[in-house]
């Protein structure tokens, strides 16, 4: 039993951190919001180069995965740097395709079947040349960034199909554009697979997406805390650094306490991948991560005051992302319900 990242895993996280620290992620978000997806796409490519997306793709399909611990390590850094794009969605889609592939017999070679779909897309996901969006109504009713994705999937009941993006909805998070993929809007879509295997694969994909999102939220929370601590040490009001006020200290201490007790839940859920406890543990992690990031955002805003409330300060990107990811991939209430259902078998 060694429940901490090993040296290689830590190094992987640190490498991503360094890569992203110099990559102008906030600028990529603002470019995306202004209509230019290219900086985000460039980021995506360097993340793929660092091996991020291969973590979700089985080795047989050109990936290095599934490696859930490495995946949450990466997603923590993606959240910490507010990387834009359908990140959890692409990972979840990889999980879905891999699962369908395994379910239908790998490499059966039929062009319109799940195996062919997996063969066509999984290697591209791994190498970063395919950005995939995915909707899993009702919990994930919108396809994130469907306008710039290379493939947009939706699972409707036990049918998997492609979807054409409708009109975008505006999120509080400028990095996110959400596209309805309601049944009615699906004329343009193509049916890809059908049956109970689709339903099972969608359930597995949901868990993987929620886990990635939880890890992303811990990174968002961590960054908010880091930036706020730094600000509290330099900003002076009433003749002293505001970080010397007990109200500020205690609030930030509480954020740290929450984050420190969220990380083990995320790691624990990653290790439960493939076990019957995975859904329960993912839900525990997502609920806790949503609340911890929410608390971090609230404290960041309150400690920064009006500066934190100002669009042009990059801090606002993380504050907004904490709110958006809270309800993405299942709300805290929904995940808590699921934990209790798993525990009571009800």
């Amino acid at each position, binding site marked *: 039993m060694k429940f901490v990242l090993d040296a290689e895993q830590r190094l992987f996280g640190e490498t991503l951190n360094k890569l992203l620290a110099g990559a102008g992620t906030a600028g990529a978000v603002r470019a995306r*919001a202004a209509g230019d997806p290219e900086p985000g796409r460039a980021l995506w490519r360097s993340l793929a180069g660092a091996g991020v997306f291969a973590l979700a793709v089985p080795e047989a399909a050109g990936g290095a995965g599934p490696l859930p611990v490495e995946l949450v390590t990466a997603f923590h850094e993606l959240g910490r740097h507010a990387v834009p794009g359908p990140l959890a969605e692409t990972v979840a889609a990889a999980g879905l395709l891999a699962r369908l592939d395994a379910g239908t017999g790998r490499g059966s070679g039929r062009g319109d079947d799940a195996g062919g779909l997996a063969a066509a897309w999984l290697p591209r996901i791994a190498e970063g040349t395919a950005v995939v969006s995915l909707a899993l109504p*009702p*919990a*994930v*009713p*919108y396809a994130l960034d469907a306008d710039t994705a290379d493939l947009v999937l939706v699972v409707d009941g036990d049918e998997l199909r492609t979807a054409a993006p409708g009109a975008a*909805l*505006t*999120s*509080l*998070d*400028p990095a*996110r554009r*959400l596209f309805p993929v309601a049944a009615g809007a699906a004329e343009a879509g193509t049916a890809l697979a059908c049956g109970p295997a689709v339903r099972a694969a969608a359930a597995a994909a949901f868990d993987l997406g929620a886990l990635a999102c939880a890890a992303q939220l811990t990174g968002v929370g961590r960054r908010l805390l880091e930036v706020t601590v730094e600000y509290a040490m330099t900003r002076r*009001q*009433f*003749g*002293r650094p505001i970080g*010397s*006020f007990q*109200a*500020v200290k205690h609030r930030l201490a509480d954020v740290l306490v929450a984050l420190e007790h969220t990380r083990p839940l995320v790691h624990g859920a990653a290790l439960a991948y493939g076990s019957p406890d995975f859904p329960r543990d993912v839900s525990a992690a997502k609920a806790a991560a949503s609340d911890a990031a929410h608390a971090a955002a609230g404290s960041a*805003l*309150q400690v920064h*005051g*009006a*500066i*934190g*409330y*100002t*669009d*042009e300060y990059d801090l*606002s990107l993380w*504050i*907004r992302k904490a*709110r*958006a990811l*809270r*309800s*993405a991939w299942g*709300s*805290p*209430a*929904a995940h*808590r*319900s699921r934990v209790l259902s798993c525990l009571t078998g009800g």
Partner: protein
Amino acid sequence: MDLDLSPVEPFRAEVRDWLRAHVPAAPLPSLETGEGFAAHRAWERELASARLSVVSWPERYGGRDATPLEWLVFEEEYYAAGAPGRVSQNGINLLAPTLFRYGTPEQLDRVLPPMASGEVIWAQAWSEPGAGSDLAALRSTATRVGGGWLLNGQKTWSSRAAFADRGFGPFRSDPEAGRHRGLIYLMFPLEAEGLTRRPIGRLDGKPAFAELFFDDVFVPDADVIGEPGEGWQVAMGTTGSERGLTLRSPGRFTAAADRLVGLWRERADPADTALRDRVADAWIRARAYRLKGFETISRAEDAGAESSVNKVFWSELDVALHETALDLLGPDGELDGDWLEGYVFSLAGPIYAGTNEIQRNVIAERVLGLPREAKA
């Protein structure tokens, strides 16, 4: 003790009927846009034409001499009707009370009627980059010249200033004096020579604020409020009303709570009522704030530091109420719309008009009598 509102029911009925007939069916465009600002200004004019823009003011300035109770009732009806946001809010709620207390008759006559009619929209200009909650740290200056003052420096997070006509706020008239001394409180045109404004976006990107840069902006003596050097007292008079009953009327919250209950009924899976406690709690708190308002206006004496009690309560209620709504909306909680807009607006509550940390200090020290904090 009674809660007999029947004497004000005729007034309530008049307001309700008028609003039913006049509130635009479709929401106006956001008042943080040029188009929306104009639409909201037109709405102020419409309100004024029915003498409903400033009901509690004296008649000579465009009001009705409404009692505080009538004002509360007006606000309840206004928000229940879903009427447009008040683009004149900074003037009516922050500048007007200051003028009533410190202004000259000439200033009252000159400033108030066009404020009441929406002809002149006011922006507040208090905060500076280095002086947010710590107002005494402000550094923008007013220098004495013949017949007036020259303003220099920078203000920021100036609400409404992107599109408003005039601004008001404190400047440092005597750099030698102590932190709370040597301030002057002034009104100035936003189109003045030497004044540059740069819109800045709030949390959701909408340009609700502006930065103001002053480069020898001339203000005549007639636009000084109170005595030069006593700007601190004038400003504190304004914060009193900003923190108290006037800025956030109970009607806002009771209307929002009723809408939240409606959202709950519409959205909540009856088998999945995890948020029920929070919905009920928001409604109860809104009711508490409403009744607290009736209590406040029933008291002879001034609330004083108790306005801090109100400010902490309504600002936290507002956040909790909107957070509950967003959580009820589930995956739609991040989407642009009335609830999200209300949420973003609510987030400013615990920050502005004195952060809630400062309010809690005030409550602890001035209401509970606890000892002051150790000094740095």
